[in-house]
């Protein structure tokens, strides 16, 4: 390319070799900022490698079985991550199911319906949800959410006609459960999903809206037929970004999920997630092997969130390009 060919010589042009003083400052500055920029990929690689190294003893012993074995017995030195993977997926997916309708409702409300005087305060409140530290959610969950679940919500769900007798809502209602984790996660990922959705909805060109309105569509028909389809891949990207957050969310989940390595069909049963097993056991891990198994959980979590985030970025990026 002519352009790159023309820019390359600029670096070695007389710029660097003046008789009246070499401008080494520019070269130093360039190298320093480049080093800062390179530090990002370097750190990412370093993190992945170090965690794989730490996880290696467990991964090499259990191999693929680490993902499928459902026995996590510290005393016996048996480590299978299946219960954690199950708990992570169930709590996150359930959280998304709970959060998405509300998040989209807020996003559509804010971008399409809200009167200007209400838009700012509601947006601010929703953003505030994202600012609350995870541990504060956990604290609130322990002392407010769990009692409500135990005394009201769980008995109610269990008393439902058909669903109540399904395995989904069976077993004793202690409070600490997959359900509790999913609810707190839903509250926590809601602002992320709604923020991304709002952005992509606002990016829908006016011409799309006006075209629908000009055809005689009502506001709702315009949103359903013109706005949402246009922004669809971005909204899905936002939901997947929320999934990434939910998968890796640690503290609130650790405080509410019950921390027991079992696979149970009941949402009332306690569970474990990849993040919460690390938070709960890592500092007290007694054997090298236990540590390595926890590291391996971290490696699985890292891999999954990497994939999920890449997918989300790709989807969100598509709206920007598709909208041109």
């Amino acid at each position, binding site marked *: 390319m002519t352009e790159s060919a023309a820019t390359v010589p600029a670096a070695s042009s007389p710029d660097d070799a003046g008789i009246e003083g070499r401008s080494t400052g520019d070269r130093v*500055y360039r190298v320093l900022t480049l080093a800062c920029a390179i530090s990002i990929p370097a750190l*990412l690689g370093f993190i992945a490698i170090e965690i794989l190294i730490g996880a290696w003893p467990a991964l090499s012993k259990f191999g693929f079985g680490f993902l499928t074995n459902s026995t996590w017995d510290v005393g016996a030195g048996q480590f299978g991550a299946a219960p954690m993977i199950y708990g992570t997926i169930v709590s996150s997916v359930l959280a998304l199911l709970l959060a998405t309708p509300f998040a989209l409702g807020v996003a559509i409300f804010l971008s399409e319906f809200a009167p200007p005087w209400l838009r700012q305060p509601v947006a601010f409140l929703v953003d505030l949800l994202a600012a609350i530290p995870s541990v504060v959610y956990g604290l609130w969950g322990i002392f407010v959410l769990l009692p409500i679940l135990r005394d009201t919500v769980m008995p109610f769900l269990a008393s439902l006609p058909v669903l109540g007798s399904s395995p989904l809502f069976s077993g004793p209602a202690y409070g600490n459960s997959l359900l509790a984790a999913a609810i707190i996660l839903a509250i926590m990922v809601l602002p992320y999903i709604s923020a991304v959705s709002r952005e992509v909805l606002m990016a829908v060109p006016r011409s799309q809206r006006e075209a629908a309105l000009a055809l005689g569509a009502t506001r*709702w028909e315009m949103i359903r037929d013109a706005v949402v389809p246009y922004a669809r891949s971005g909204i899905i990207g936002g939901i997947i970004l929320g999934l990434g957050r939910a998968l890796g969310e640690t503290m609130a989940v650790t405080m509410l999920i019950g921390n027991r390595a079992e696979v149970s069909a009941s949402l009332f049963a306690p569970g474990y997630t990849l993040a919460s097993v690390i938070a709960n056991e890592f500092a007290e891990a007694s054997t090298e092997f236990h540590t390595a198994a926890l590291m391996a959980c971290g490696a699985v979590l890292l891999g999954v969130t990497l994939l999920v985030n890449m997918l989300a970025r790709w989807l969100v990026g598509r709206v920007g390009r598709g909208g041109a």
Partner: protein
Amino acid sequence: MNAPRTTGSQRAAIERTGRTLGRRRLTNSIMLGVMYVAAGLATLPLVFILVHLVREGASALDANFFTKMPRPVGEAGGGMANAIAGTLVLVGTAAAIGLPLGIGAGLYLAEQGSRRLASTVRFLSDILNGLPSIVMGIFAWQVLVRPVGHFSALAGGIALGVMMIPLVTRTTEEMIRLVPASLREAALALGYARWRTSLSIVLRTAMPGIVTGALVAVARIAGETAPLIFTAFGNQFWSLSLDQPMSALPLQIYAYATSPFEEWHRLAWAGALVLLALVLIISLVARFVTRSRFGGGHD
């Protein structure tokens, strides 16, 4: 008039005009109502949490909380002085790492990156931003705790600092891009070297926006617990040494909330109130730092 493309969905809209207008109007009103309810319900948890936090926290909050050390179970009047100091030290350490690296990377991306390298770094920065904080914790443990054999505040600070980098990089790049190119030209034409142009003209002009971004990043990491559990670890005693385990507000809240003791629960609420107040104050300050000193007269 530029004619917008007619999509399939818009043709569907035409077909629907066949339906009675009254029914369509009704649907419209119902959906509008649903949106209002959804927005209301979405803000409800926040209201719940805030109300409860203020009620429980305020009743447990007194001067002792800020000045006293934690007491053993059963002794009243303990505080979290060491945890508050610890949080400040940890956040300071994180900022000392995250700010220079993030600002440097943002400058590079905005000003001199080759296009392919810049977009790669930008993408990976987003990915780094999406890493679970607990992963950052085990990374810091593996690199900084395991080799030396004991927990340290430094490891916690570095874990938090790494989390700050992508946030600061992103806002720095965005803010630098807002600075009109004409200012850069004017400085170069005055005989400024590129590095001086970048630092004393461009960066200085973008500074209010970058400060805002830095504050937002600080607010986010100040409440993080997961990266600290097995790095800074927590400490029942007063310690400001980076080489030693250190307490932090989130750690102390976690420990007290999961304990069986009533008195500690009260302190956990007080701690949560203080932590949230800290985070919110930083966020609000960030909002009000003036962003608009780009001056009149150009672009």
